[in-house]
């Protein structure tokens, strides 16, 4: 242990995401978390739980194959299989209530009204916040989703806001040209935080059969390969909105989490990394504390938007002059 570490014994890892206090900024990404991880990690150490997206209707999910791997990445087209609201309220929520960790419920619906009524129905004891998944590329035709456009994001967020008093997180898509504009729309309509982002719409083709590798033809790309892209989007969104941003895209290590926080994220979600290292989240929490100790950072919130952008010097143009 170095000198800095012995001088400072602990780091304040707590963050506040739009009114929801978390013991640390690390939580799962929706769709990569379930009760099975109880056998791998102590659930009381996570910043929050985020459930797999639930829908009002029963959904079977997409045809198989549902995943294909590519270097440094995974493409999935699971398609949100859902057992419906009643199963969720009776079986899933009670499973998490014994833990001292807030439960964030991810929801999806085909219409803005559907989102609102589901949010209202799930604003019950045991649920700490709603994450509106308006960005799944796998359930609408051709990867379309509310979060592709500012107008549709504004409309669905406004209806959600009117339907629930719980902290409202809106999960944005990386598949639109102007993510900051969509983030501003969510903020303007009353979102308490935005999650940036979901998976990147993508495709893979089998060279033996010439068929798409996924049953759904297209799917969402995740994993370390997408980190630089989503990190850039978090950086852009942090300049566009005042509400907290939860970074999500290719985070596997504490260093990745720090990068996201420096770019402007107040918290992070870990998804695909859990498929490779099931205890990735708790490892990240430990390593994040160690990182802060070594850098003598007292509060993890000091990292937020800490990226240092130096004013560029006047460019040296002499070489452009052919005579000099």
């Amino acid at each position, binding site marked *: 242990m170095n000198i800095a570490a012995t001088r400072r014994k602990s780091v304040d*890892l*707590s*963050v*506040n995401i739009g*009114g*929801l*206090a*978390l*013991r*640390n900024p690390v939580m799962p990404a929706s*769709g*990569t*978390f*379930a*009760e*099975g*991880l109880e*056998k*791998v*990690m*102590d659930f*009381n*150490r996570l910043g929050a739980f985020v459930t*797999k997206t639930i829908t009002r209707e029963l959904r*079977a*999910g997409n045809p*198989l*194959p*549902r*995943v294909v*791997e*590519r*270097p*440094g*990445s*995974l493409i*999935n087209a*699971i398609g949100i*299989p859902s057992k419906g609201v009643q199963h969720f309220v009776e079986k899933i929520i009670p499973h998490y*209530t*014994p833990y*001292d*960790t*807030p439960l964030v419920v991810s929801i999806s619906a085909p219409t803005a009204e559907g989102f609102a009524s589901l949010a209202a129905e799930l604003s019950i*004891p*045991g649920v*700490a*916040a709603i994450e509106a998944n308006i960005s799944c590329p796998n359930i609408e035709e051709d990867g379309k989703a509310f979060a592709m456009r500012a107008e549709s994001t504004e409309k669905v967020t406004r209806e959600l806001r009117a339907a629930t008093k719980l902290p409202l997180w809106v999960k944005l898509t990386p598949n639109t040209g102007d993510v900051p504009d969509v983030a501003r729309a969510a903020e303007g309509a009353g979102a308490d935080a935005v999650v940036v982002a979901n998976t990147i719409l993508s495709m893979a083709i089998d060279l033996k059969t010439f068929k798409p590798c996924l049953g759904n033809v297209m799917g969402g790309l995740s*994993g370390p390969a997408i980190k630089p892209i989503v990190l850039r989007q978090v950086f852009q969104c942090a300049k566009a909105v005042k509400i907290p941003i939860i970074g999500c895209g290719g985070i596997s290590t504490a260093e990745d989490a720090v990068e996201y926080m420096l770019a402007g994220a107040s918290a992070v979600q870990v998804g695909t990394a*859990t*498929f*490779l*290292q*099931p*205890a990735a989240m708790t490892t990240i929490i430990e390593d994040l504390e160690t990182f802060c100790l070594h850098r003598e950072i007292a509060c993890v919130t000091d990292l937020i938007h800490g990226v240092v952008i130096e004013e560029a010097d006047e460019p040296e143009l002499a070489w452009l002059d052919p005579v000099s």
Partner: protein
Amino acid sequence: MSIEPDYGMAAAPPSPGPGAWKPSIVAELAEVVAHDAVNGEYRHLVVACSAEAAAAAPGQFFQLLCPHPAGEQPFLRRPMSLYGADPVKRQVEFLYKVTGAGTRGLDTLKVGDRLDIMGPLGVGFTLDPAWRHIVAVGRGAGLATLAPLAKAAKANGTRVTAVFSARRPELLVSVDLFHSHGAEVVAVTDSEQTSGPANVERILRRYIADGRCDAFFTCGSSRLMRVQQRLAKEFGLPGQVAMEQQMACGIGLCYCCVRDFHVNGEIVNRRVCWDGPVFDLMEALP
């Protein structure tokens, strides 16, 4: 009755100190103790591991983070049936066929190398103490999955008769292991034209008639599974089948490995990695 926590604007929940919580599934670096070719296709890998990993039960599996073979980058872990577990020596064994990027990577491992193993995973086989005699039917890689049953059955005081199917006799695996635990093994092969479902059914009917089949255990062939489902129904016998499916997480999170099952007149979707990989024989669909 617990009081509902109020997360509103309250202070963050405290970080718990080191508590009594212990993992039952681990991801760890295991050391390669032995790694040998069994025949032209199969490799036998033995690794030294923790007590948690070595507690693996027959029918369970591990997710292996395979080394990258030259020119390939397997991203996901690869599910691998347990071939054997020794809680005393703290070792687990795998028997695998080199077929893709992941297993080509495994094939590069040398004694002393480290392999990242995650497990034990899934629901394994169940042995009823009342069973006097069981029949194990396997083909191909399914023979490796059935292998730990031989030892477990012996410990349970249950006799085992195995019907093993392969393309050619030299590709049969696990036969010696079953013999070493006192099991009888009948081999059927494509090259000898003995592996067809009709012949296997004749063999199984004989075992049933002789009172040597209190339950079926099977892995590796849909055709042979259907034969056993028919016989199980006809004679009212229980059975278990270990199923395969492409997996990503291996721990029930991602829902990529789902299969349809026939349960009480309904078609039900289940995760092979979490609800299985061992399922009731009568509920399985090919």
